[in-house]
């Protein structure tokens, strides 16, 4: 009976081999999928039970931290200056998961990233409580504060970039909201806060800086002007027809200048002057002359048409296709179906400021393990060259004209050359959106900014980009210049 017993031993070995293979499958091969299953509460408990890494500004201010508490989650996420940085941090909700940077950098913050593997092994050996990595952002305290103070409760958004690196110096959306409310461990409290914020006036949870798109109005004339200069058929001195009212083909409605007057003399104006006074009819003519392909290509070169992860998600700004001449004319002045995020318009200014090269906006400066070892430090990356160095220089000179003697005089800073462009975007029956996008110093830019004030803010129907948005841009740029004094050139 030994032969069958030995065969039985082989069968038993095969049975156990099958079990070991199944174990390997479940615990190793398929484990990632199982861990990510939303029904797996362990993953959430584990992350909540681990001390999540802090989020700080570039100045070292802690804007999100995990404090030990005596409940099942063990750590409470706390946002010391919550509303100010809400558009950056997002929140860490135990009921609906993370948002903002909390979501985008979750692997590091929670400590689940594979980059932390050796850290975790050493924690295991030394018995040290495991924890997440610290994310240092590129945000500068003073610039962020200037953005909040500038908007002063008006609905809108401010984005400030370092044009040479793409570092996001400020990213603020108003009305702001308090991430602490959503991070409550009491489910009912968190749910009530979420319901209230979701239904709140002005949709605070949706970032106006990155998630919402608006007609950019005349700030888009920078793109049109760039396309004109890049075509080689135009210089800043080229003369363009600029009547008071432009008859649009196939429509009865004409396209008017804001003041109802023709620009320049004899119904013609130079490209530079057209930008300086934001002449609608001149740019509409220019757009129709260039065609939608050139205009669309130029917009894409600045970043339109692509969503971005900075690493917070930035919605895709759009330049429409399939336009007739009338729609093309409206698009050339940033009306019609052109829509852009404030982040995108900051990228346009930053690209011009950086000699024509658009840098990828980036919020994360460094990620450090708890031993302060740098785990990740994103290098500046280019989105691409939007315009030639010559075109960028010409546009800069034209934008300086806007601030010196044009529609953007409110953005003038003593002793600093500022280049900018206003936008007053018609918005159906509602009051127009006020825009301003600019950079400074014009000769060696250290900050590029886009300010967006929804429906003109408190100025309402009286609003214009120059009146409402330009002063905010001015104070944000001043804060940025002060903060980066001597640190860049």
């Amino acid at each position, binding site marked *: 009976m030994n032969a069958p017993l030995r065969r039985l031993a082989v069968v038993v070995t095969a049975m156990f081999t099958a079990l070991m293979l199944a174990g390997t499958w*479940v615990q190793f091969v398929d484990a990632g999928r199982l861990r990510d299953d939303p029904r797996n509460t362990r993953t959430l408990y584990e992350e909540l039970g681990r001390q999540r890494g802090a989020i700080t500004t570039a100045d070292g201010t802690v804007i999100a931290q995990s404090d030990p508490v005596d409940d099942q989650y063990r750590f409470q996420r706390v946002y010391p200056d919550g509303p100010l940085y809400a558009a950056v941090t997002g929140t860490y909700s135990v009921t609906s998961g993370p948002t903002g940077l909390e979501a985008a950098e979750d692997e590091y913050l929670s400590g689940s990233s594979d980059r932390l593997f050796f850290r975790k092994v050493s924690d295991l050996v030394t018995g040290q409580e495991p924890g997440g990595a610290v994310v240092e952002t590129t945000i500068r305290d003073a610039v962020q504060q200037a953005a909040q103070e500038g908007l002063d409760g008006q609905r809108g958004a401010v984005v400030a970039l370092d044009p040479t690196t793409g570092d996001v110096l400020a990213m603020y959306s108003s009305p702001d909201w308090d991430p602490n409310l959503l991070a409550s461990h009491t489910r009912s409290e968190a749910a009530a806060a979420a319901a209230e914020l979701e239904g709140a006036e002005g949709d605070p949870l949706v970032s106006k800086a990155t998630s919402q798109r608006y007609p950019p109005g005349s700030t888009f004339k920078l793109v049109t002007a760039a396309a004109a200069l890049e075509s080689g058929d135009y210089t800043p001195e080229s003369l363009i027809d600029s009547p008071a009212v432009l008859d649009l083909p196939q429509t009865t409605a004409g396209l008017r200048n804001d003041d109802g007057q023709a620009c320049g003399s004899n119904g013609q104006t130079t490209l530079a002057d057209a930008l300086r006074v934001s002449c609608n009819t001149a740019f509409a003519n220019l757009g129709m002359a260039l065609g939608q392909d050139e205009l669309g290509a130029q917009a894409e070169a600045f970043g339109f048409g692509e969503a971005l992860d900075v690493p917070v998600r930035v919605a895709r700004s759009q330049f429409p296709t399939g336009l007739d001449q009338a729609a093309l004319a409206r698009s050339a002045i940033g009306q019609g179906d052109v829509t852009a995020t404030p982040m995108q318009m900051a990228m346009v200014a930053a690209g011009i400021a950086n000699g024509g090269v658009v840098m990828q906006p980036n919020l994360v400066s460094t990620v450090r393990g708890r031993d302060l070892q740098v785990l990740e430090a994103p290098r500046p990356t280019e989105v691409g060259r939007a315009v030639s160095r010559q075109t960028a220089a010409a546009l800069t000179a034209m934008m300086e004209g806007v601030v010196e003697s044009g529609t953007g005089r409110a953005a003038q800073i003593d002793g600093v050359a500022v280049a900018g462009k206003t936008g007053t975007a018609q918005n159906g029956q509602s009051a127009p959106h006020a825009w301003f996008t600019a950079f400074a110093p014009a000769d060696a830019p250290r900050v590029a900014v886009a300010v967006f004030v929804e429906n003109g803010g408190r100025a309402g129907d009286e609003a214009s980009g120059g009146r409402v948005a330009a002063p905010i841009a001015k104070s944000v740029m001043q804060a940025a210049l002060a903060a980066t004094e001597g640190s860049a050139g």
Partner: protein
Amino acid sequence: MSGSAAAPPAHVEVPRPPRSRRWLELGLSAVAVGVAMMAYGLVGVATDGSWPAGILGYGAGLGALVLVLHVAARWRAPWADPLLVPVATLLNGLGLALIHRLDVARDGSFAERQLVWSAIGILAATAIVVVLRDHRVLRRYTFTAMVVGLVLLVLPLVPFLGVNINGAQIWIRVGPVGFQPGELAKIVLTVFFAGYLVTARDTLSLVGPKVLGLQLPRPRDLGPLVVAWLASLGVLVLERDLGTSLLFFGLFVAMLYVATQRVSWIAIGLSLFVGGAVLAWSMFSHVQARVTAWLDPFDAEVYAQSPGGSFQLVQGLFGFANGGLLGTGIGQGRPQTVPYAESDFILATLGEEMGLTGLLAVLLLYLVLVERGLRTGTAVRDGFGKLLAGGLAFAIALQCFVVAGGVLRVIPLTGLTMPFLAYGGSSLVANWMIVALLLRISDAARRPSPETPAEASPVLPSEQDASATQVVRL
């Protein structure tokens, strides 16, 4: 320690004099108790930050019990296999630590009761080693065993005695003590199978018609197999216990094969099994639910269904996944998320906190235990001993496969517990009794033959081969 005076049998080449290896047993048992103590202590370290006060008492208690069994083996079974007791001790001790860990998480008191059952189990094993001087005595009780086994199987169906727990009618309750007679029936019926088959093997080996190249047995000899099959189906239908049913039938078929060496019995057994399985599947909704939960556990509907859904299985898989390669560390996972984490799903607890590494190690421990049992079967000289050792070892293997396979989604989930590891008094006592019987049989197998090898002389040729080809010398 060695009986070096005994002359080796003339036909066996033995390079060294045989050694009893009792010191090896003692040393490995000490290691097993030590590892179990460490596991127990780590629960305290993980949850309280300090070594628990009870660790020494726990270690001393487990150690003393194992020492009693060890001494009994020295006294009455000095040639017994030295690995059986340490492996069983380690599994039992790890199980205790894991159950204690779940107690801490859920404020339960399973571990204390499991410790009492461990004591009863080890003492029962000791009693068997002391009282049962020769396993062949059991052969005299072949048909008594049959009757006792069937009574044990039927016991849960007796009104007022049987208890229905979670839909399965496999428990009896006498006063405060609950017991699963099926676990004891496993041993008793293995004794019966061995006794019956060693007698009937010649008849059962006779060949009948040849079909498709397969030499079938005579139809009239199919009776016992059909009876076993019907009994298994009866367990399934009346007690709604898929696992026990599978275990008994598989065990019988395996022993039938060992006794007759005829592959045709396996083929017939497998077809009967498949037939029974399809029948059960088509007739019973709870069987269908198990199969659905096995095939499609992540489906939202299957997951949400209660009872009979895949919630437990999926949560168990999440536990395994959470453990990954190295595990969360004892006391640092969340195994209490899984229903019945201390019994049916103890493996998920193990996999989560000790990782794939721990799971594979424990599976290997079982494999060692089973293979030592099968080795005992090949080494012992009498046919009854071969069948009994082989059957008992295979019963452990099959039970492991059915439970672990269910939890790891190799096969549909059934209600059985991991031997030694899982919470459950009946199972623990029964498995220690199996270890005792294997100790007894392996003592007979390894004992050097006396000068006149009367017992060893009627050696079958195949057994000579076995001695010559043994890789591991005991």
